[in-house]
Each structure stands twice: as C-alpha cells, then as structure tokens.
C-alpha cells in the first residue's frame, strides 16, 4: 500500500507542472477545457466568495474608473441638456462621495453560487381526482411585498398530485405576475450555443453578462453555463481589460482562480506592470485553495514580486511562461532605470 502511495506521489510530482490531462484526473469529474461545465458542483463557492478577505480583494482589483462606470449607455433614452452648478470645495467633495457610493452600487458583484438542486416537494397525493382535467393547474401566491424566491407556487398535475412548482415554472409565474425589467418569459436566442459564440467572437462580453444577469438567477444552471463560456472566451482572447472596472471582473477572477487558470491573467497584468494586482490574485488563490504550497512560505505582503515568484515556483502549472514574463518585466524596469540615470548624467544632475 505504501509503495503504491509513494508511486502515485512520484508520478504526480513528475507531471505536476506540465500535464493538463493528468491534472484533470486529480479532480473528481472529467473536464474539457473549452466547453462549458458546471464547475461549482463539488465544492460550494458561496462561503468562500462572501468571505470578507475575498470580497476586499475582489473589490480592489475591480477598480473604479469613473469614466467607465458612469459612461453613457445606449438605452434609447432621450438626451437632455446638461445642468451646471457653482460649487465650493466642500460641496464638490460631498457630491464626489455620493458618486463613489453610487459607483459601489453599480459595481456590486453578481453572487457566485453553486448550481441549484431540483425541487421535489410533493404536498399531497390525490389519485381520486385523476383525469379531472387534461392540463396542469398552477396556483401562485401574489401577496404584495413577497420576494420572488419566497413566493409559494404549487402545481396540480392531471394525475392528482399537488406538488411545489419546479424552478422553471416558479420563475415563469413570477415573471408573469411581477415582471422584472430586462427579463423575458422565454430566454432570448442570444444564449443558445451558436449565437453565443458568434457574439463573443465580436467581443461583446459585458453585454452578454449583463443580459444573463437580467434573465437568470445566479444559481440557475443556464446562468452558470453562460458565464463559464464567457469567462473561458475572455481568458482565451486575454481581453480582461474589457471587463475591468465593471461588476463582472470580480466573478471572472474568482472563476479563473477557482479553476486554477490564472496564468494568462497574471501575464497580462505583468505586461501592464500592475504588480499589486498580481499579488492580490495570488493572495486570492491562497484563500480559495487553502491547501496550496506557496502559502507556507512567509513572504512580506508588500513585496508583490516576491509573492508572485513564490506562487510561480510552487503552485503554478505553467511555470516557464510566467517566469519568462517576470524576467521580461524585470528587464524593462532595469532598462528604464538605466535610461533615467543616463538622462540624469547627460543633464549633469
């Protein structure tokens, strides 16, 4: 037994860094890299997502670019002329605070939950009334003020069973009696496979994610499928900047970190010389995967590059690429320093 265990460990250590196929064997279910899969089945992401540390990190890396957050959206509303005000410094500060509060509302991240389980709650069986009608009857509680999830929706089947409505039936009834803006009774064709790939090829990630948020609940398997397809596409094209400073950046980083696909993200951040963001993602990784090796090493939290290097050494699955990127970054920094010094000496300073 011990021999087999050591053998397993030996094999693991050989293939740990490079073999993506073996990596997938280590998990419970088989996974394809490109197609969409429900990834939150085995472990519930909600407690991790809503923990304070994770939330602060995600909010920090999302960023608040006011020009992007408050940009004009094309919603076919009539334009009105701008208003002007004379303001003192205090008044301006107050308005800016209000704007920040509004921006944090706009940048509120859609929750990351695991897939919901099908409802199978039978309230009563009445075989005596089988065949009373050839269609189902749906009873909805339309009390004012109830949240949609708490609303009771029951169905009487033709065979006499009175059961609680399934998720789809309940959502449809809620949309009929309390329609939500942006939500349709029938999900738009946008979310079908071929149309989705077409739209994502054009780079309309934010549009698709916003539509999905409006149409589906966060624990809907459809929502999880769509978001994973979008995140994979973003990762493939390396277009992380498109979602930066939007409410989807946090869940995107969480998804990638959960699935250990942060290499591309780290490389693109390094190329933009955002070391702090890189360090934040590594810290996020350590929070999500508490069994990782780089956590053991005590690195000064202010040394972002050191933290990144520790991750690259111990936990990364694409060591070479990341190391190359780090080297390139260090080269650039060195050259820039050299250039500045040359300029200074030339000017005689």
């Amino acid at each position, binding site marked *: 037994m011990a021999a087999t265990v050591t053998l397993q460990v030996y094999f693991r250590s050989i293939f740990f860094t490079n073999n993506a196929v073996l990596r997938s064997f280590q998990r419970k279910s088989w996974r394809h890299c490109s197609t969409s899969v429900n990834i939150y089945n085995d472990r519930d992401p909600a407690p991790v997502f809503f923990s304070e540390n994770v939330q602060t990190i995600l909010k920090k890396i999302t960023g608040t670019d006011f020009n992007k957050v408050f940009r004009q959206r094309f919603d076919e509303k009539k334009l009105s*002329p*701008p208003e*002007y005000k*004379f*303001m003192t410094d205090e008044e301006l500060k107050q*308005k800016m605070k209000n704007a920040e509060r509004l921006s944090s509302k706009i940048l509120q991240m859609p929750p990351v939950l695991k897939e919901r389980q099908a409802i199978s709650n039978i309230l009563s069986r009445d075989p005596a009334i089988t065949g009373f009608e050839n269609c189902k009857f749906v009873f909805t509680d339309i009390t004012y003020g109830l949240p949609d999830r708490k609303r009771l929706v029951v169905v009487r089947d033709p065979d006499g069973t009175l059961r609680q409505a399934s998720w789809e039936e309940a959502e449809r009834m809620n949309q009929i009696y309390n329609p939500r803006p942006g939500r349709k009774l029938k999900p738009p*064709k946008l979310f079908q496979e071929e149309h989705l790939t077409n739209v994502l090829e054009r780079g309309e990630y934010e549009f698709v994610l916003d539509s999905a948020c409006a149409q589906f609940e966060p624990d809907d398997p459809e929502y999880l499928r769509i978001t994973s397809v979008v995140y994979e596409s973003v990762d493939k094209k390396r277009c992380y900047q498109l979602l930066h400073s939007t409410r989807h950046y946090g869940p995107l980083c969480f998804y990638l970190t959960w699935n250990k696909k942060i290499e591309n993200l780290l490389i693109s951040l390094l190329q933009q010389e955002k070391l702090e963001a890189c360090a934040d993602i590594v810290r996020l990784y350590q929070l999500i995967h508490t069994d990782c090796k780089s956590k053991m090493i005590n690195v000064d939290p202010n040394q972002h590059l050191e933290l990144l290097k520790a991750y690259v050494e111990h936990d990364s699955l694409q060591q070479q690429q990341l190391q190359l990127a780090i080297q390139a970054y260090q080269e650039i920094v060195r050259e820039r320093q050299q250039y500045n010094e040359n300029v200074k000496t030339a000017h005689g300073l």
Partner: protein
Amino acid sequence: MMASLVVPRRWYRYLDTLNARYLGSLRAKYLNSVSIRYLDTLSSRYTASPGTLQRHFVTLVPSTSHMVADAHIKLRQQQEAVNQVMCCTPSGPLIYSRRTTSFFNKLTAEQLWKGVTSVSNAGRKQGRGKGVGKKIAKDLNRGQIIGVGQENMVWPGLNAPVIRGRELVQQKKLPKDEEREARLIKIRNTMGSFRALRLDPLDRGWCGNKMPGRSIGPPNPIEDDKFEGFDTRVLELKIVTCMTAVFGRKRRFSMFVVTGNGNGLGGFALAKATTISDVTRKVKNRAGQKLLYIERYNEHTVLHDFFTYFGRTKIFVKKMPEGYGLVCHRAIRTICQTLGIKDIHAKIEGPTNVQNITKAFFLGLIRQKTHQKLADEKQLHLVEFRKENLNFPKVVATPQSGKVRTQEEIPNNEELDFTQHIMDGKVQLVKKKYPAPYEKLPSYEIYLKKYARRRNHQKVMLNMLVEEGEYRSFYTDQYPECRPGYSSKSEEAEAW
C-alpha cells in the same frame, strides 16, 4: 514666304483707317495694346486679297514693304469699285450704291438692342416698358459657334485643328447647310417669352425659387486668403426704391446675407446695387470682411442659455443636447448652419424683422461667457451634471488663481443658481400647457378604452417576429387559414 492670314473684318477696318490717321482716339475706342501691335505688323506686312472685302472675314496676303502705300491705294479703288455694281437694263446702265458700313456694324449688340427695346424716361414714368408688353433683348449668339457662319467652311485653327495627324489641314468649302437659318430662327422664336426659373430642390432656400435661403458661394478670394470652407446664404432680398430728380423712381436690390465657415467664424452684411449679380458680389465680399469668431460647446451648440435683443426683437436661446436639431426661426437656422451650430432652441418674442433677429443673435453669441471665465468670475468650481452619466459631478472649470471661495465667504444675497446668473436675473415665461379640447369629452374615454386593447400590439408583433419568426397564434398549427395574408380565393385556385 508667309502664308495667307484670315482676320475678322472689324480688324481690317482699322487697317483701312490707317490712312486717315485717327490713331489716338480710334485705338483707345476699339482696341487694346496687344491687338494694336499685332495689327501694326499686319498692316506693314499684309494687304487684303481682292474680292474679300464684303464678307465677315478678310483674307490678307503678304506684301513687300515698298508696296504698302500702293496696296492701300489699291484697296480704296477696289472698295469704290465694289460700291458700284454695273447692271445692264433696256433703259441703260443702272448704278446701285451699296454701303459696306453703317450704324448696324458700327454699334455694339447691346446698344442696338437698347435702341429697339428701350422706353423713354417719360414713358417709364407712366409705367411703360414693364410687364407683358416689355420687349426683351434676344441674345443672337445663341445657337451659333465661332467659325461657323452662312458659308460652311473649314477654317484651320478656328473650327478645325491646324494639323491632323501628319498633314496640314487646308481651308475647304463644304456644301451649304440649308437648315441652319431655320434652326436659328426657331431658337430665336422661343426666346423672349417669360419662363419660370426651375431650381433643383437641393439648391432651393426657404422661399421657393427665390433667393432667400439660397447659397451664393464663398466671398471672392483676396490675395492669399481663399475663404476656404466658407458659404454665404441670403437672408433677405428686396427691391428698394427712391425718387430721384433725373430718372424719377430709382430701383435697387438690397441683399442681406450671412457667411460662415461652419467652424465658428461668421459675419453678416447688407449691400445695395442695381443688378442682382452686382449686389451678390458686393454683399458677400462685405460679409467676408466683417467676420466674428463665436465660441461653441463641443462644436455643436452654444455655451449656455442666453437672452438677447436688438430693437424690439427679443430672443431666448437655449442650449440643447446632440440630436436635438435647430428648432428656431428659419433665419436663425440659416445662421446656425453657416456658423456650425447643430442643436439649439430659440424663441423669438416681438417683431421678426430678419436684420434685427440676426443682429440680436450675433450679439448674444459674442457676449457668451466661457466656462473658465464664469469660474473666475465667481471664484467657484463650475460642475457639469449629465443625466446620461448618472449625474456624475464633472468639474468643467476651476478658478485660474487656484483660490476657491468657502461657504462663509459667499454673501447671502449672491445669485448662485447658474441659469439665473447667466440670464442676468431674467426668467422666461413658460406658458401653461392646457389639455386638448377633445380630452374633456366622454367620447375620449371610450376611445382610450378601445385603444388600450391594441396599444402594445406593435411591440408584441415585433417580439413575435424575433422569437417565432412569423405572426402566429395558438390556432396557426391546426388551422391553415389563421395566417396573415391568407385568402380563401387562393386556396380555391389551388384546388382548381
């Protein structure tokens, strides 16, 4: 050996008068210096070939210098000989004198026509020479080409190339064109009757086929300044009269235009002249001299709302967002188009005299205050709030000195409201909007109830096309007639 030369007869007349020595006055009257020099060389080198004096053109043949004087004498003799045509009749020989020159070919076409069509001053006072009976001068050059006349001839250098391929083209007489006279007469018959001007719709202004609203082109270039991008539009064209001692009623055109390059530069001017072409030229050049630069906001609208007036004409101008358009008097719209303002709302109160409107509007435009100036005036931040940007406070201008007043430093009675400050305390009267008279009737309620049924049909049908692909209902699958555009006749035809 020089080739023979063909010259117009008029020029040859000058040669003819060399003997008379009326050089000074004649030269000044008929010819410019170039043609004089040319003709002097002609006279010393050429003489008329015999038998060519009566026609439109005279063929000159080269002569040697010592024969010039003899040649001239010979010419005279020839002329006199032509004047006397011998004709034999039973009663004896008849001599017909023919003049080769008369008033007909000594006066210009304009002078001749004036003699035929003009009305005396006295007649003019009584109103003659206006309206239906007015004789109109006909342009006889229409339908004619230089080089083609009664005689159908090929003149190399004039109506044919001198060299065709490798050969010199020779003078050649072609057979006479019988229909030429008929064609000319036909053209001349159609002339003279009044014909209404036909304008392309894109060229029209806001006054039908007349000038107001139309473009008259950019001002004429002055040395280096080419007035690129400038367009002038007529705002007003009227005929003004005054009584004079000599002519009586004197009629002149008065034109008021605005010019602009679509980028903030523009100016307006008024000019008067007797003809349309003169007044057009005068006024657009004058407008080009009086240019002003006006500030715009984002190159599409004014900086802020303002109120202006000139005379009794008052204008309330409002700044508008992109896509609003020029909702204003047509004169203001024309001015804005030339200046490059695309969105504005302007309400005129009082008389709508076009000149006063223009002056009031320009006054308001040049009196606009830039954002920086306003911030410096008030020593406060100027902040812009836009609804489409969720009212995010965008600081447009801060005081240049860097010092911003605090709440305590601002006196109680100071006007801090932007609109009030800009309008100098004036408030535009906003009239109350009353409901339409039919809204009080009971039939309106009935209409609303009926309309409520089909109020959302457009959106529903659009969604249906998106989701289902066609207009359908629950019955469409079972019953084929439940489809739009279905007719029972087509089914019967198919059955047949």
